[in-house]
């Protein structure tokens, strides 16, 4: 599916989604075990149970209710979004800054580049235990962890993007007497946006995974936490609800991001 073109409901797509639901329903009847695969109706019926997540001390409700489920989901979604957004933005900013520094100064390049190349080979989640020890349950620890994972990927992406800029544009700026700072601001930064956008799109998907990963392991709140919590209680219905919600969120973030990128790169020749 081409995300850029948006999601239009046409008959074939509707049939695709419907057949998936039908297969689900039939499979749940055949399996006949609500722990492995509850039916659609059974899943919907577990929605109110989400209200009790976290218990009283963490803002949960005592009795299951749709209202409570809505409040709990909204609050935890906001928490997850805040982590995702804070970490990703911080990571993107730090990553681009590092790449610009690498462009700016040869000594800095020699210093940072091997560091980045080493860190890139580390699976991000492998670092999570270390961050937990450093920052404990501190919220900043999560955000820093997400930022770090995002940042490493963005540095590499930005460095490549800078390298791929047509050299003639930098020379052109130079013959107008532009200073290094002016070249940075007027040629490098606008010039790398299209390539960077592609990288950020990939990183965004990864950031969702990392945010959820951090919530699985390190904290007591967020929709990732609800997912793990539900698993501990073998509440498969609730898990499926969280997954559906997660799909919607991921799709919406991609959609918003694509809109934003299309605006930023409105000067680009059409590629299609």
């Amino acid at each position, binding site marked *: 599916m081409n995300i850029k073109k948006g999601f239009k409901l046409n008959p074939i797509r509707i049939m695709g989604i419907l057949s998936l639901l039908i297969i689900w329903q039939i499979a749940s009847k055949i399996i006949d075990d609500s722990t492995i695969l509850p039916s659609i109706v059974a899943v919907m019926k577990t929605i109110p149970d989400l209200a009790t997540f976290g218990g009283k001390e963490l803002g949960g409700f005592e009795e299951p209710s749709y209202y409570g489920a809505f409040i709990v989901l909204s609050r935890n979604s906001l928490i997850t979004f805040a982590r995702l957004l804070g970490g990703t933005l911080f990571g993107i900013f730090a990553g681009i800054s590092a790449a610009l520094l690498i462009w700016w100064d040869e000594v800095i390049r020699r210093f940072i580049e091997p560091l980045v190349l080493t860190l890139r080979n580390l699976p991000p989640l492998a670092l999570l235990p270390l961050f937990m020890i450093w920052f404990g349950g501190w919220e900043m620890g999560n955000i820093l962890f997400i930022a770090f994972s995002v940042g490493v990927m963005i540095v590499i992406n930005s460095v490549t993007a800078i390298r791929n800029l*047509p050299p*003639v*544009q930098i*020379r*052109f*700026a*130079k*013959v*107008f*007497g*532009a*200073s290094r700072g*002016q070249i940075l601001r*007027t*040629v490098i930064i*606008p*010039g790398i*946006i299209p390539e960077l956008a592609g990288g950020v799109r990939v990183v965004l998907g990864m950031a969702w995974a990392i945010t959820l990963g951090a919530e699985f392991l390190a904290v007591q709140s967020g929709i990732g936490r609800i997912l793990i919590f539900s698993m501990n209680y073998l509440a498969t219905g609730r898990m499926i609800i969280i997954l559906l919600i997660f799909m919607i969120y991921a799709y919406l973030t991609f959609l918003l991001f694509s809109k934003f990128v299309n605006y930023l790169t*409105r*000067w*680009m*020749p*059409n590629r299609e």
Partner: protein
Amino acid sequence: MESKIKIKVEGLCKVFFSEQNEKNTVFVNLNFKVYEEEFVSFIGPSGCGKTTLLNIIAGLEPYTEGKVLINGHPITKPGADRGMVFQEDAIFPWRKVIDNVEYGLEMRKIDKQERSLIAKKYLELVGLEEFANYYPKELSGGMRKRVAIAMVFANNPDTLLMDEPFGSLDYVTKVDLQEELSKIWQKERKTTLFVTHDLEEALFLSDRIFVFDKNNTIAEIIEVPFSRPRGEEVRNGQELLEQKKLLWRHFQ
């Protein structure tokens, strides 16, 4: 014609090492002078260092030995006193046409109102005033070249360096732009160094033509006899054809 010397190149040597560490000599001992308000073309076989020479004068490339003087001062780095038009598409695609034309002025921190006035004037000069708010992607190759020319003239350099600016354009567009350039040049009278492979282009535009040979030295300097302004009668005239024949001998 007693004119002031604008650019003086004396004993210029340029050597560079390739990635395989092989020594490449571009110039051994190059000497020439270009006078103020003169239009000089460099022609010669590919790889004879014409572009390198232009880059050196632009301050974009270092040289090994000798003197390269502009107004009597050695050239060390690029500056707004020299403007350059490249063969490649160099205008900034993320800036609208008008913002491109303002670029040099913006870099020199000239205030918004004044630079907008100047930019409009030069956009008009190249016939693109209606396209001020277009992005470069919406223009043809020839129009983008006009934008580049307007950008350079708007910055008001006193020396113009042009590196095969019309090399990638079709003949009709090329002729169009040569005539346009000739007109603007007549008005602004900037010392111009113009690299080209096109003999007709060199004859049509220049006051003098420096013919480079395979050894990267100037084999001959030709004074172009046509008076200005030049139009179709010069381009398609018998005399240009004769001159072209003479020039052609250097390429055989």
